[in-house]
């Protein structure tokens, strides 16, 4: 039970007054980010990253992770009240959340959404507490080949699990790798792909890409749709909350299933968005009232919210234990670790116990604080959405520019942010997924390094990736993930033939 004592130690760290303050500020900022169009979890955290440079790493990660929890909660508010998903993972919440609001049951819908988010996150945090140290211990044994295997698995799951065409996912991912390769080669110290441009010597920073692709790109998309906010009023009082809470235990099966879907999709980097859709779809098929889904069924709010939050939280597990982030936001947090001088990966659990367990403890506490804040402050956050877009848009643009500039104090980065923004708009409109691109920029160098080290050890033979049971299993899982759509199609054909 060493983990338990570590966890209590973590709580002691988190309960310091400064860290509690940081947590509350983080959640408030996060909800605002989640509510505002154009600012989401990943780029919100990226923009606010510079604010943490002067803090201790533990306080910094508490603040940033709380911004993330806040953003996860905030997405639900706009979905239910305005029928506008503040975040991609809350799209599925609009299906039943908004009809409920139209029937005057906005309070119930929001309470259900927040509570389910909380349950999903709690489930995922408990899983992280139990599983992450084991995974980290296991991963300490990994050599370069196994490390490459893990990256391979992560990226293959992207291709196999995303609903976009595989060729587009591959293109987007490989562009990320190419951008990540620009600049100084880690192993030989040679310059590459810079073509004599001095600004490119240090390569492309993925934070700039995140702010541009997700921040600017999102504003352009919002502009195109021509937003008109017509919100529903929400009344949340203690009576509504308690009444809804009494009703919720009835959906424990849906809840548990969504937790499991969420955790699975979060750890394999499929992410919160597909998790919420999948969970909604399965709940619809399994529920007795499935036909009524889409007309304001509370179960239709519970399922996607639980899964999205479970996925969003469990995306931090591979980031902490293996140094492989499960989502763009986890990638930004990982970038933060590097900036604060910490090396993500299994060694964190040995060398930076305070940090790791402080973070895990803050996940427990942050979600409790978050639940209280969102339940009490909904009208305030809804009011923010009523600020006209012609005021909020330029302010968000300014914040994006500040965020991009302060990563390296470089105005060239601000220009790059704009380039990424326009590219993000076009790519998104054409159905290219952006998350693999960002993760590839982050992990490109490391994946390449482990690949080349493995080849060096084997004198150039690719056989090293099948040389022992462990690496062979990881690579095989990767291939299964890569060809999963084909395997699935094959299985269902077999099944349709069998009964005949």
């Amino acid at each position, binding site marked *: 039970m060493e983990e338990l004592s570590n966890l209590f130690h973590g709580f002691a760290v988190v309960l310091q007054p400064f860290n509690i303050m940081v947590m509350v500020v983080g959640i408030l900022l996060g909800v605002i980010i989640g509510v505002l169009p154009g600012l989401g979890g990943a780029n919100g955290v990226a923009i606010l990253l*510079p*604010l943490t*440079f*002067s803090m201790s790493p533990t306080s910094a990660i508490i603040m940033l992770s709380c911004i993330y929890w806040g953003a996860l909660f905030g997405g639900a508010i706009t979905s239910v009240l305005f029928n506008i998903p503040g975040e991609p993972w809350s799209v599925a919440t609009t299906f039943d959340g908004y009809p409920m609001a139209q029937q005057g049951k906005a309070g119930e819908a929001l309470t259900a959404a927040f509570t389910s988010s909380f349950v999903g996150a709690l489930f995922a945090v408990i899983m992280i507490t139990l599983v992450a140290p084991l995974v980290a211990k296991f991963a300490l044994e990994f050599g370069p080949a196994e490390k490459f295997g893990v990256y391979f698995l992560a990226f293959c799951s992207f291709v196999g699990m995303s609903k976009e*065409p595989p*060729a*587009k996912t*591959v*293109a987007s991912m*490989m*562009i990320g*790798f*190419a951008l990540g*390769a620009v600049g100084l080669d880690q*192993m*030989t110290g*040679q*310059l*590459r*792909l810079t*073509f004599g441009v001095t600004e490119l010597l240090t390569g492309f920073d993925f934070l700039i890409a995140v702010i541009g692709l997700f921040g*600017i790109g999102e*504003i*352009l998309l919002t*502009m*195109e*749709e021509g937003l008109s906010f017509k919100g529903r009023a929400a009344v949340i009082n203690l009576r509504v909350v308690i009444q809804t809470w009494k009703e919720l235990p009835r959906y424990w099966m849906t809840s548990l299933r969504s937790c499991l879907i969420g955790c699975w999709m979060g750890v394999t980097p499929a992410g919160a968005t597909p998790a919420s859709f999948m969970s909604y779809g399965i709940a619809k098929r399994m529920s007795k009232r499935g036909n009524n889904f889409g007309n304001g069924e509370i179960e239709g709010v519970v399922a996607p919210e639980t899964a999205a939050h479970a996925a969003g939280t469990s995306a931090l597990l591979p980031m902490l234990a293996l140094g492989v982030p499960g989502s763009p936001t986890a990638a930004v947090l990982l970038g933060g670790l590097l900036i604060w001088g910490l090396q993500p990966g299994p060694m964190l659990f040995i060398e930076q116990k305070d940090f790791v367990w402080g973070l895990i403890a803050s996940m427990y506490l942050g979600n409790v604080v978050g639940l209280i804040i969102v339940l009490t402050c909904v009208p305030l956050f809804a009011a923010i959405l009523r600020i*006209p877009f*012609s*005021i909020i*848009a*330029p*302010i968000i*643009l*300014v914040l994006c*520019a*500040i965020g991009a*500039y*302060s990563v390296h*104090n470089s*105005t060239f980065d*601000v*220009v790059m*942010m*704009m380039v990424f*923004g*326009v590219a993000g*708009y*076009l*790519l998104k*409109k*054409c159905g*290219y997924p952006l998350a693999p691109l960002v993760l590839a920029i982050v992990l490109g160098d490391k994946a*390449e390094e482990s*690949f*080349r*080290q493995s*080849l*060096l050890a084997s004198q*150039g033979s690719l056989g090293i990736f099948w040389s022992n049971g462990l690496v062979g299993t990881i690579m095989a899982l990767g291939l299964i993930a890569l060809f999963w759509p084909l395997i699935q199609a094959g299985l269902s054909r077999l099944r349709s033939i069998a009964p005949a």
Partner: protein
Amino acid sequence: MAKKSKGAAASGPAHRSVEMGVAIFIGLLALITIGGGLAVGIDWGAEGPKAGFFPFYVGLFILGSSLINLWHALRNNPSDKLFAEWIQLRQVMSVVIPTTIYVFLIPWIGIYVASLLLIALFMRWLGKYGWGYVAAVAAGTPLVIFVVFEKWFLVPLPKGPIEEFLGL
């Protein structure tokens, strides 16, 4: 969803052409990457594979997938779907153009003055607010940013001649 379908009245670039354009552009990126990889060497060196090895193969993957995407786009019916209506694209450009100018102004006049201009432009031009309100928000935001970033969190932001004149 709030998709407007005005039938024949709506016009704009076809989705197919934009998709093809994006695929071709990505293909060009691939060629640059392959070229860059070849330039630094892709064969075996003293420390194993040379620096260009990885970019070269990444470039091949990009090229392959962009060709597939191009082929898929070509098979689509040209009159199938609009990328966006011209009115919508005008909205998008009304953000892209001022923001691009803003981005290039930052090194010259600093982020504070540039932000003031950007916010004022948006509020006046797109929001049609009165000058008093415009001035309050446009001047207030950089001020708040200055206090939060420079004073509280000690993050220096780019400044121009006006800040220098004021001695900030």
